[in-house]
């Protein structure tokens, strides 16, 4: 009963901030202040515990996949909306689901968590399972050095009370088994996912995981419980234990296939004997893409495919996943991506032209493309006008236009074309 007042106040604040179209962090902050034990108490009710999904890239997609796979097994899942991965965003998400007395009817919580807050949040949320996806060069202006990010994840993994699921093919995260066994830790157990070596070797730019300059690579082969064997435009073939599954992917690409393997390995560990590969495959069949990750949205009589990037790895892997040079392309990038030095690490061979370049950093992007001799039609820094230029182009033969966008421009572009109803944590 002691949560009635904070929950009601928090909800009222939430209603007001939503009506104003603002972010969702404030209500969670207020509830945290009024009732510090609130979150701990709510999450203690989850029978299967809490899963943290950590990684430089793929958190939203994998959280979504894992959520749907577990729902496919009949579990009621509490999860945070994509991108809402900072502490207050998570509190706000909890707030929207609980009853006024602080009861939350869910069997499990699956939360994507920002690396920088993962260890701190683990003290409140006491995660039973930690899934680590990858360490890729990301937001150096914020993290300074990539190995700092690796340690944030590895340190958090060590506090999982049951399972750690990690990436066998990541130079930092593949060390977690060694790290925990050196400590003599009895829990958590460690399970790996990965991609078949040939698949990685055949990928134009590999996996784009960060180089590890501080440790030698392991020489002993590591087994993966779930391994991506192949992927194409229709889906992925993943081996889970001894069984093979052909699953549909909500978005196409090597990295999405690996995210699916990560979700399957995690589901198998969390569910134990209840895990059913057929149910998991069925869940993938009806899955929609996570926000902005390969989504096809209506744009007049046409469709727009959103290809979102946040850093070098997500841009390169998404470009590599394009089946051919896209027919009509808009690129949108603004100050939400502060440091774009890494654009010079990207191979743009998948683009034969760009129709419209927009956002405050359009000129910097155009400068990069000019160095590769890739022609750009129009540079229009204003997104609204840029979208009108795209609308004015003749209907593409493929039926869809491709918009390569950073996170902030994706949010704005969606709003402009009428898909704006979404909470974010910023």
């Amino acid at each position, binding site marked *: 009963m002691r949560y009635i007042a904070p929950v009601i106040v928090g909800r009222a604040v939430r209603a007001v901030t939503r009506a104003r179209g603002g972010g969702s962090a404030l209500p969670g902050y207020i509830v945290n202040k009024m009732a510090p034990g609130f979150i701990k108490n709510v999450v203690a009710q989850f029978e299967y515990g809490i899963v943290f999904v950590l990684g430089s890239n793929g958190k939203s997609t994998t959280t979504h996949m894992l959520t749907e796979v577990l729902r496919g097994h009949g579990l009621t899942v509490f999860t945070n909306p994509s991108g809402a991965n900072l502490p207050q965003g998570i509190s706000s998400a909890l707030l929207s689901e609980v009853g006024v007395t602080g009861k939350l009817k869910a069997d499990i919580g699956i939360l994507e968590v920002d690396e920088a807050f993962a260890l701190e949040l683990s003290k409140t949320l006491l995660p039973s399972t930690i899934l680590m996806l990858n360490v890729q060069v990301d937001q150096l202006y914020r993290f*300074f050095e990539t190995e700092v990010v690796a340690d944030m994840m590895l340190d958090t993994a060590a506090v999982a009370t049951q399972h750690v699921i990690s990436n066998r093919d990541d130079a930092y995260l593949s060390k977690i088994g060694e790290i925990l066994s050196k400590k003599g830790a009895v829990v958590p157990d460690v399970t790996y996912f990965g991609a078949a070596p040939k698949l990685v070797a055949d990928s134009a730019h590999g996996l784009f995981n960060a180089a590890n300059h501080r440790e030698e690579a392991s020489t002993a082969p590591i087994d993966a419980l779930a391994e991506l064997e192949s992927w194409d435009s229709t889906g992925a073939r993943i081996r889970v234990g001894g069984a093979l599954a052909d699953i549909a992917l909500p978005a196409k690409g090597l990295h999405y296939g690996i995210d699916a393997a990560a979700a399957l390995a995690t589901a198998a560990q969390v569910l134990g004997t209840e895990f059913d590969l057929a149910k998991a495959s069925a869940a993938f069949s009806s899955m929609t893409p996570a926000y902005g990750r390969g989504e096809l949205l209506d744009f007049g009589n046409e469709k727009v495919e959103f290809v979102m990037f946040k850093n070098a790895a997500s841009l390169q892997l998404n470009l590599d996943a394009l089946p051919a040079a896209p027919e009509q392309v808009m690129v949108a990038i603004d100050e939400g991506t502060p*440091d774009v030095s890494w654009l010079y690490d990207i191979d743009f061979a998948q683009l034969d032209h760009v129709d419209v370049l927009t956002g405050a950093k359009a000129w910097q992007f155009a*400068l990069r493309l000019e160095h590769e001799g890739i022609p750009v039609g129009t540079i229009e820094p204003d997104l609204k006008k840029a979208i009108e230029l795209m609308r004015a182009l003749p209907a593409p033969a493929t039926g869809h236009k491709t918009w390569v966008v950073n996170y902030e421009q994706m949010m704005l572009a969606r709003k402009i074309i009428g898909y704006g109803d979404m909470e974010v944590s910023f």
Partner: protein
Amino acid sequence: MSSSSAHSVSILELYPEHLEASGERGNVTALRARLERAGHRVDVVQHTIGRRLPKDSDIVVIGNGPVSAVRSVYADLMENAAALRSLADDGVPFFAVGAGAELLGGGITLTDGTALTGVGIFPFSARRGVPRQVGYIVVESAHGTVVGFEDNASEWNLDSGAVPLGVVTSGGGNGNGREGVIAGSSIATQTKGPVLPLNPSLSDAVIRAALERRDVAYAPSTAHAELDRLAAKSREVIVANVKSVFTTI
């Protein structure tokens, strides 16, 4: 000076696997593009740990990286220190950014107090662990206004009489109102972005120094116009948004 006929220009790229963490590959890309558009052939030699350094080069480029990468390349760099100094003594221009520049300077004092002796080409020493500077930077230099992005927690102390690349008008730079350091025709800078694509005049200064040494004339032409136009527009926006505040949580 010889005529504007095609020449082969060799760029030595030091430790690309370790010291190009801030897109410094782009500095090589910019030099290559401008040289090729001036009609020259460009040969990029990548030096990695354990390989032999080429005897001669026209330009030497090094970039930024984390402390772990600095430690990884250190022994190899020291083995090649004399050869690199001899290139510098011969007037080969070096273009060095961040941690790579610090390795080519007098030395680096790390946050744990340990010191690494540098190659001694640039007259400065670096001290790590000062408050981090992140964001756009604007510098007035002998090559005009230099713009870019800075992200470092390092203070550069220039040797007595050493000349900085320029004066900071926005941003942190060396930590004392100056940015970078020059040594003859060689340039060391904290500015990323990467800096050369954004600053054609800086690229041209490096190229001119390299070609003058071989008695070859260089001047940008209409073939460079689009690179220069886009760089100018990029720079305008950077100067306009120079106070953008970036989250560093």
